[in-house]
């Protein structure tokens, strides 16, 4: 009896970790898909971080003012798309350096969110705490309690599948959406072509700039959702620098996934899992090791990415024309 209870408890602990993984991975997944769109089109997108931060603020601020999480989400998407267009203006139309432009957006977002936040809400850069009505609420699936009481399988349904807010599902759908767009549609074909060999697309009579702008707009939409998730679904309000490098982790996950939706999804889940494990193990004594090496676990995503980029875990093939502004030859 005692034994059985222990196993069941361990199983529950595991499922809770998986549940946390999904919640932590959601913004990463949305951001990584956004990164795939930008980077497949040949635009380096380190501005994922800034776009997410800015839209997190916009979502929380508008949700506070209108008491509507949906209005917040729409605004967040709008703001993120605008930043994407700014990135496009600098790097497509004006042929500037894409890394510098992305960096500028990140710095801009970091400063602007706090400045506007203080001006609007006078809470040191935070937005007021959102009530339940102003947030995306967990969706309890039907019969969660009844099915949840079934042994072993039940908790999977109750803890892992049920009880997520809509944006978690949107993030998972975004992976399918991205894969579908890339491989099955005309836009996807052109998107992949423009990141590999823009002159081929140009000579085929398709505008390179238009295709890249479109890619940045789609990326903006996905990034905006990631931001809104952070402040109005996962959290309950905006906190300064609340993205805390998630944009960069998403970028790393995308590279780790070799610019492919499925690979990026798995990388995001892995990174999310490590983070979930680390927070569960906080202060826990592990047999033989002693206190759990939480910092090491948190650093793993970065180490893995560095190792991948160094070429130890298969070869990552970035789009060939990435980072190069398109200029017709002489």
């Amino acid at each position, binding site marked *: 009896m005692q034994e059985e209870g222990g196993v069941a408890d361990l199983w529950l602990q595991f499922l809770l970790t998986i549940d946390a993984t999904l919640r932590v991975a959601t913004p990463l997944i949305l951001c990584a898909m956004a990164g795939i769109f930008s980077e497949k089109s040949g635009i380096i997108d380190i501005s994922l971080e800034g776009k997410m931060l800015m839209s997190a603020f916009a979502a929380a601020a508008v949700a506070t003012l209108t008491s509507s999480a949906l209005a917040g989400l729409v605004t967040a998407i709008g703001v993120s798309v605008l930043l994407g267009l700014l990135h496009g203006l600098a790097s497509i139309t004006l042929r500037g350096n894409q890394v510098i432009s992305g960096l500028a957006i990140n710095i801009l977002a970091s400063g602007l969110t706090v400045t506007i936040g203080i001006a609007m809400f006078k809470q040191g850069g935070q937005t007021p705490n959102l009530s339940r009505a102003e947030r995306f609420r967990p969706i309890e699936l039907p019969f969660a309690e009844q099915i949840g009481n079934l042994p072993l399988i039940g908790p999977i349904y109750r803890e892992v599948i049920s009880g997520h807010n809509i944006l978690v599902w949107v993030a998972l759908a975004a992976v399918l959406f991205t894969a579908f767009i890339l491989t099955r549609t*005309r*836009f996807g*074909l052109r998107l992949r072509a423009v990141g*590999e060999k823009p*002159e081929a697309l140009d*000579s085929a009579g398709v505008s390179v700039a238009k295709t890249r702008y479109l890619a940045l707009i789609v990326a903006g939409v996905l990034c905006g959702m990631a931001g809104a998730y952070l402040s109005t679904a996962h959290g309950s309000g905006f906190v300064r620098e609340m993205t805390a490098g998630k944009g960069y982790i998403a970028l790393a996950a995308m590279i780790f996934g070799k610019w492919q939706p499925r690979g990026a999804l798995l990388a995001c889940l892995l990174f999310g899992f490590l983070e979930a494990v680390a927070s569960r193990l906080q202060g826990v004594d592990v047999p033989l090791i002693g206190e759990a090496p939480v910092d090491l676990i948190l650093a793993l995503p970065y180490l893995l990415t560095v190792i991948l980029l160094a070429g130890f875990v298969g070869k990552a093939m970035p789009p060939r024309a990435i980072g190069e502004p398109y200029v*017709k030859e002489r």
Partner: protein
Amino acid sequence: MTDASQMANGGSTSPLAIELSAINKSFGDVHANRDVNLKVVSGHIHGIIGENGAGKSTLVSILYGFYAADGGLISVNGQITTIRNSADAIGKGIGMVHQHFMLVPNFTVLENVMLGHEGSLSIEASAQKARNVLNKLSEDFGLTVDSDMIVENLPVGLQQRVEILKALFRGAEILILDEPTGVLTPQETEQLFDILRALREQGVTILLITHKLKEIMAITDDVSVMRDGEMVAHLKTAQTSPAELAELMVGRKVLLEVDHTPAKPGVPVLQAENLCLTTANGIDHLKDISLTLREGEIVGVAGVSGNGQSELLDVLSGITTPTSGSFRVGTNEITTQRPSDPAQLRRLGVAHVPEDRHKCGIILPFSAAESMILGYSGTDEQNQGWWLSPSALEQNCADRMHGFDIRPPLPSLASANFSGGNQQKIVLAREISTQPKLLLVGQPTRGVDIGAIEFIHKQLIALRNEGCAILLVSVELDEIMSLSDRILVMNNGQMVGELAREEADEQQLGLMMAGIGAEDGITTSQMRAGS
């Protein structure tokens, strides 16, 4: 299409597929096209010949909508039109096969052909439709390509075929080919010409841009000559001669044949024995290469590009270390265990004109004077104590520019601002001026205009006459045949044959380059009797 081809034979009443009048285009100070007029008869193969930088590519880029003309009129099939971008050109039935292929390397043939003309939003249905059209095109014109192959895995000849298919898929009735044969073997070129003839049969109008006289004579119906951005002549191909065209291109008489006196080979300068080069992932680039080079001879290495010639140059110049085997320069032996490097070999009198001047020959943003001393910056004449001496650099460069007729003669001008021919002369001047014992030279006249080719060839012969041993790697068979005293043929990393200057002809070299009939003369003659 059939109407056009019937009427095309009607002489002066033939409809015009393209008419250009008074086209002008400037890039900054450079007047690339000056009042260019051109009439291309429908259903003809029309050649435009001219030196590099004569404005041919600019002209067809305007026609294909890559650049907007500063002024002038374009008529397609008798109607004045404006072509603002490639989509406009495609809409008017103009297709283009670019010199540097416009193919997405990691896409399949099918995806490349569809790109931009997918038809529907979803590509599933359009892929099937495209596949059917492709099959039909390949039947009609003998353009066979496996549509599911990844383009970058195809040989260059087939990649070009994909480019042609792409244009036809978009409904091109006027096909522009910009220097299409630069990367092809003689056999592939012949196949291309067969395809072009088949296209002409079907009424397709073809505009062929080239700097090769032989191709103009072989396949075109009409020819226009460009020089310095202007059209200088429009001729019927049947009524002209290579000599006349060459003179029109350059504006003066050109010596097409090099003045080649018999060689007087002396002692061996370079002896290579069983050189092998295998990459880390097991690909053999060089297999048992043995060769000897003597003072005062030019040995040509013929071969389709990518059969180990580049690697041979890399090994002999010290850039790569052979996996096994050895070579001896003078009394110094270089082996895997005792490798060398370019600097050491240079001190031993080995000079190297690399195949790709942009990648290894010069540094484009550097001034000509700086590019002129790459690899030799440590020599005393360039330095004052620890410091480079700018005045010595400039003086040295000015002298060589004078000696090699490099234009414009401005040592401080960035290397990028010289034409291809003059950049090549910079590299050549640098390497030759050290009086090398052995000169390794790769593609000495790639992308170089006729005037400069003539000059470079003369320099190489002169150097040979002074006793230098020269190893010449080139994909231009004409160049190999007119300069070499002996010709080695490479195929798939091996030396597959050697011919004396007198016994080499293009047919036989072509077969050997393709790896056929290399072992003995009997097979070769059988092959020839058979074909």
